């Protein structure tokens, strides 16, 4: 299947027809909901917060933020940015609670410094790797985006961006741009090495180091390449998906200095999508 990012610019790809199909698909709704919930878990917000939703689309991610119950630190208030008028039209039809801007996040983030407690972006920022016209480069757009995002967040604020890089080059280009803007950054992988792998770029304002970015986050461990006392256990061949296999994969990733989830009682079980 070809990637939408390779076919058309986002505002043309998400036309009226595609936006309606996207927003009404129960499969898409459940995937976007579970990723948004995961992002919220990583943000670990304790109180009703002001959140920026980058590439908010028809509000599938945003409405989860509005629905966080009081006893879980919500409800939050969000402002969304999206470049597709049709997607925003769907959001209006669904009466979402957030305010929205028709805006290209590759042109910057037009809010005064320290506006937001946090930001999320679900399945959007890989679009920034495609420059649609000859007078802009992906690098310049990524810079405007991450510089603007950094500014718009309060000190100590966090952003979690789930994204679908086309390849390692895009993944590197995106995370490097975030680091250049001043973020402490780490990438978390859910279901690594499976077809449904999900990547979360975890960013923090006020820390040049990954450890700071994910400190206090639930279920995330920062893997330090300097840590030598881990058993690798590569000689044990284990069944794909089994607990032992996952532990082994984790060890391999730890060795590469990636962030992986800390071992929890859920390790090796299928996760339920929560609604």
């Amino acid at each position, binding site marked *: 299947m070809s990637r939408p990012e390779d076919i058309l610019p986002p505002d043309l790809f998400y036309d009226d027809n595609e936006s309606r199909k996207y927003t009404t698909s129960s499969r898409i709704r459940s995937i976007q909901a579970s990723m948004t919930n995961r992002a919220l878990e990583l943000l670990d917000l304790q109180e009703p917060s002001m959140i920026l939703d980058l590439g908010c689309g028809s509000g599938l991610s945003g409405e989860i933020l509005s629905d966080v119950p009081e006893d879980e630190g919500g*409800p939050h208030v969000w402002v969304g940015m999206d470049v597709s008028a049709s997607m*925003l039209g769907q959001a209006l039809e669904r009466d979402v609670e957030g305010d929205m801007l028709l805006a290209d996040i590759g042109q910057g983030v037009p809010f005064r410094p320290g506006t937001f407690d946090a930001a999320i972006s679900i399945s959007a920022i890989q679009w920034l790797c495609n420059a649609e016209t000859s007078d802009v480069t992906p690098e310049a757009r990524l810079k405007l985006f991450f510089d603007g995002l950094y500014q718009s967040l309060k000190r100590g604020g966090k952003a979690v961006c789930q994204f679908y890089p086309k390849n390692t080059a895009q993944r590197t280009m995106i995370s490097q741009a975030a680091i250049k803007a001043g973020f402490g950054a780490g990438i978390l992988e859910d279901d690594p090495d499976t077809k449904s792998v999900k990547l979360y770029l975890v960013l923090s304002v006020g820390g040049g180091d990954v450890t700071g970015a994910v400190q206090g986050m639930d279920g995330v461990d920062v893997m330090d390449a300097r840590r030598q006392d881990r058993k690798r256990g590569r000689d044990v061949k284990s069944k794909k998906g089994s607990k032992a296999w996952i532990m082994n994969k984790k060890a391999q990733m730890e060795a590469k200095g990636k962030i992986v989830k800390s071992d929890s009682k859920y390790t090796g079980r299928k996760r339920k999508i929560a609604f």
Partner: protein
Amino acid sequence: MKVLTLNFLTCARKTCKQNPAAFPLHPKEAELEQIETDINPLFIQNMLPRLDWEAMKTVTNELGLPNLPLETPTAEALVDESSGEPSQTLKDLHSLLMETSVASGKLVCANCGHEYAVKEGIANFLLPSHMV
């Protein structure tokens, strides 16, 4: 576009961002609407220190809304002392920040003069590439 959001939005042009005149954006030919929502006291309390009260006064005045107090209300003023319930101040803030919004009109940058159109509550911040 809620009055709350207007207290944070700036001109999107890079050349304006550093300029104090690029905030707040000034509503023009604005049509207002009032949309009821549940009150979220803790959210409002969290946002209080972040509000630019001078900009609040300017924008509400330009929107033809009633005059605001001279200073930002304090966190203590949000609860009614005797009952512990939301105070009138909190209810007023809620109604102004969260329930009053610009349904249509324009938002104008005082620095560069650019007008951002608002339709159905959504502001158009797309810039032609020479203006980025």
